[in-house]
């Protein structure tokens, strides 16, 4: 290769991203990544969104990735820039979101020297990425970036980080094209175990009390997985529930939909999980928020588990038929073989099963006592759902009670419309995520259902929303409390509300006005609909301060250490108090 063919490391970074089809980067510049920002300045293909904190860049990239199915890209500088991205990386790892973080690093000859803004970035991010790289040779930079995209996007998706020292950005090197790299580092999907699959199908055909338990893996697997899942439900008439991450893979208006399962899932979903005799888990991982007490989890069922990650199999719950591979592939083979065998189900028993399920539905576990004087948070979410569901809508949330209410009361007809921090439970996720979503879908209605405490954790992103004129709607259920913490303290810690109130809250309307955006305050249930409409119709960003009942608890609830059939349904039925053993669980 002649000198003429060589370009600088910074040029290589930009070229590689364009080669990968990247059109948007979220980031924040700093000393160690300046050469890359200089290149960014001199091109037009990649749009850069300047966030106000690196954590927000990672969450925005997550929102972008989850709402589009593409890979989110982030630029941060060395040291504090990189350490600020750690929460977002961990969040993306837990929720299997593909993002690529490119971090600046001090020059190679300064590494280990305690240089200014130096941190051991690959060391710090090793356990919170799928893989990470420190690139010490400009000639390997392009190859590494292409590898990073492959690793992030294939198999079970996840975050990766490429650490690029400043001298490597300045030095010249050869560019390797995307299609020129060897892919021997990618783990091959194992072939489907057809014997196991046939055994599972014969169980499916005989199942008396079946349930389909779907998760985020269906959404990650893509549209064909979602279609296959819907065909399977339609063909079998099996009831289906989903984890928090999987909402939207089956339409909430579908007749077989039982609502979300788990700690704050519906009574019918959890009772069906407990009493079923055949469980088909598709792209979910038996998380502790789902299972409740492990040794009492669905004790009499034959369990089939479809997952692309072998480490998810038998991790929490021992299953009878593990099927490892891409959900869309397994589901299409499963459907084909089941049809070949005559599309049989145990119809007679199935209708009896639906009868029990409909009885459980009759409990109306999401019921609450409404009020005409104060806005109940459930009512606020219900009205928001009613007034926005006809729109081309995307919803993100923060973490806490409002998140659970949004999951309970909002209906998602399609995948990639619901972005929430599930595994890590990151307060402060929703606002930056809504920014990433709006960037990807400029004309859609993007709403962040928030609690005031979570929202304040990344409130600096108001600047980003204003700078790029992103009409994100921040719908804050303001109870002046850390609602979920308060709820646990009430139920578990003798009503000692240790530091769970939000003191010294800002005037959210004035805060909005300080940034030149619209603020709306609503505290009257009678005004709620009008105010929500006003929020929707306003063409720019809106900060909606919805003052709600301060002491509302989120029900139903499976207390820690309890089984699915031991739910607390509401304030009146708390005979099922939490045991000492349960109290130590989170």
């Amino acid at each position, binding site marked *: 290769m002649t000198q003429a063919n060589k370009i600088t490391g910074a040029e290589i970074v930009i070229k590689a991203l364009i080669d990968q089809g990247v059109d948007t980067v979220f980031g924040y510049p700093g000393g160690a990544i300046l050469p890359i920002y200089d290149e960014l300045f001199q091109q037009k293909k990649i749009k850069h969104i300047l966030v106000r904190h690196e954590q927000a860049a990672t969450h925005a990239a997550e929102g972008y990735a989850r709402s589009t199915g593409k890979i989110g890209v982030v630029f941060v500088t060395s040291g504090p820039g990189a350490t600020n991205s750690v929460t977002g990386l961990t969040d993306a790892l837990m929720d299997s979101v593909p993002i690529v973080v490119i971090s600046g690093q001090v020059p190679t000859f300064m590494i280990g020297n305690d240089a200014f803004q130096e941190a051991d970035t690959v060391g710090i991010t090793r*356990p919170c990425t799928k893989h990470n790289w420190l690139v010490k040779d400009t000639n390997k930079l392009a190859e590494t970036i292409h590898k990073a995209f492959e690793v992030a996007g294939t198999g079970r998706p996840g975050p990766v980080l490429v650490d690029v020292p400043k001298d490597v950005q300045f030095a010249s090197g050869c560019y390797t094209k995307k299609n020129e790299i060897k892919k021997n580092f990618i783990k091959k999907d194992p072939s489907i175990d057809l014997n196991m699959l046939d055994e599972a199908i014969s169980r499916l055909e005989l199942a008396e009390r079946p349930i389909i338990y779907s998760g985020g893996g269906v959404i990650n697997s893509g549209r064909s997985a979602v279609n296959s899942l819907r065909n399977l439900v339609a063909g079998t008439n099996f009831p289906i529930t989903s984890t928090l991450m999987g909402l939207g893979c089956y339409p909430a208006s579908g007749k077989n939909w039982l609502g979300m399962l788990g700690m704050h899932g519906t009574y019918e979903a959890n009772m069906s999980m407990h009493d079923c005799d055949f469980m088909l888990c598709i792209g979910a991982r038996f998380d502790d928020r789902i299972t409740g007490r492990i040794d009492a989890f669905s004790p009499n069922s*034959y369990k089939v588990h479809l997952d692309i990650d072998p480490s998810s199999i038998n991790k929490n719950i021992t299953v009878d038929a593990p099927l490892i591979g891409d959900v869309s592939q397994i589901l299409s083979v499963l459907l084909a073989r089941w049809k070949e065998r005559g599309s049989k189900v145990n119809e007679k028993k199935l209708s009896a099963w639906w009868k029990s399920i409909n009885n459980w539905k009759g409990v109306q576990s999401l019921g609450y006592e409404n009020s005409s004087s104060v806005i109940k948070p459930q009512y606020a979410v219900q009205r928001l759902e009613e007034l926005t569901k006809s729109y081309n809508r995307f919803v993100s949330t923060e973490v806490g009670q409002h998140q659970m209410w949004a999951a309970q009361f909002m209906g998602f007809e399609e995948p990639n419309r619901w972005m929430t921090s599930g595994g890590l439970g990151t307060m402060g996720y929703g606002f930056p995520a809504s920014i990433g979503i709006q960037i990807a879908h400029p004309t859609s209605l993007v709403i962040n259902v928030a609690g005031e405490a979570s929202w304040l954790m990344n409130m600096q992103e108001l600047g980003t929303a204003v700078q790029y004129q992103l009409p994100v709607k921040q719908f804050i259920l303001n109870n002046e409390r850390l609602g979920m913490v308060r709820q646990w303290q009430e139920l578990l810690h003798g009503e000692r509300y240790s530091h769970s109130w939000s003191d010294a809250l800002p005037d959210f309307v004035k805060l909005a006005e300080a940034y030149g955006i619209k603020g709306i305050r609503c505290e009257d249930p009678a005004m709620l609909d009008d105010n929500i409409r006003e929020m929707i119709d306003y063409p720019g960003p809106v900060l909606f301060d919805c003052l709600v009942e301060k002491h509302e608890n989120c029900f139903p609830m499976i207390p820690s250490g309890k089984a699915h*059939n031991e739910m607390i349904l509401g304030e009146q039925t708390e005979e099922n108090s939490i045991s000492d053993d349960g109290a130590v669980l989170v």
Partner: protein
Amino acid sequence: MSLKLKKGVNKQSAYNLRDPNLDYEAAHTLSIIVDNESGVLARVIGLFSGRGYNIDSLTVAEVDPDGQRSRITIVTTGTPKVINQIKAQLNRMVPVHEVIDLTIKGKAVQRELAIFKVVANGNQRVESLRLADVFRAKVVDSTLKSFTFELTGTSDKIDAFAELMAPLGLKEMARTGIVALLRGDNSS
């Protein structure tokens, strides 16, 4: 435990069929082929510490300079469920190419090398040399007051030798941890 099983339940449950031996912890020797790149050992060790798995012994060295591959041999203890988790988690890592469970895969040769420094006079000195001969330990260094022995063998053998040397003036020892390969003509 109150499972509250209802009448007429289907007894085909995973719990009822559980193998009662499943909870027995056992030592497994894992042979892991990895890319010999910077940080790879930290990744593997970080997985063990981060997820609370045991490491009883660990060795690592490059074994294929052309392919830039290293072999990490780890002895770990856990229930079958945990061992399966460890293998699945290791297999997920990008620089990990192969994880071979030598304890399950077949008979394996497992060896450790240790060096012992024994400082003694008179009978004790003679006795240490005699025992070293019994164990086929080699003398690799000596002064008028000391012997340094090199011993290769199973961990049991090295433990036994260390125990014998303790009263005879064992000052210090160093051991490598286990390296292992499958027996027979199959490569693992």
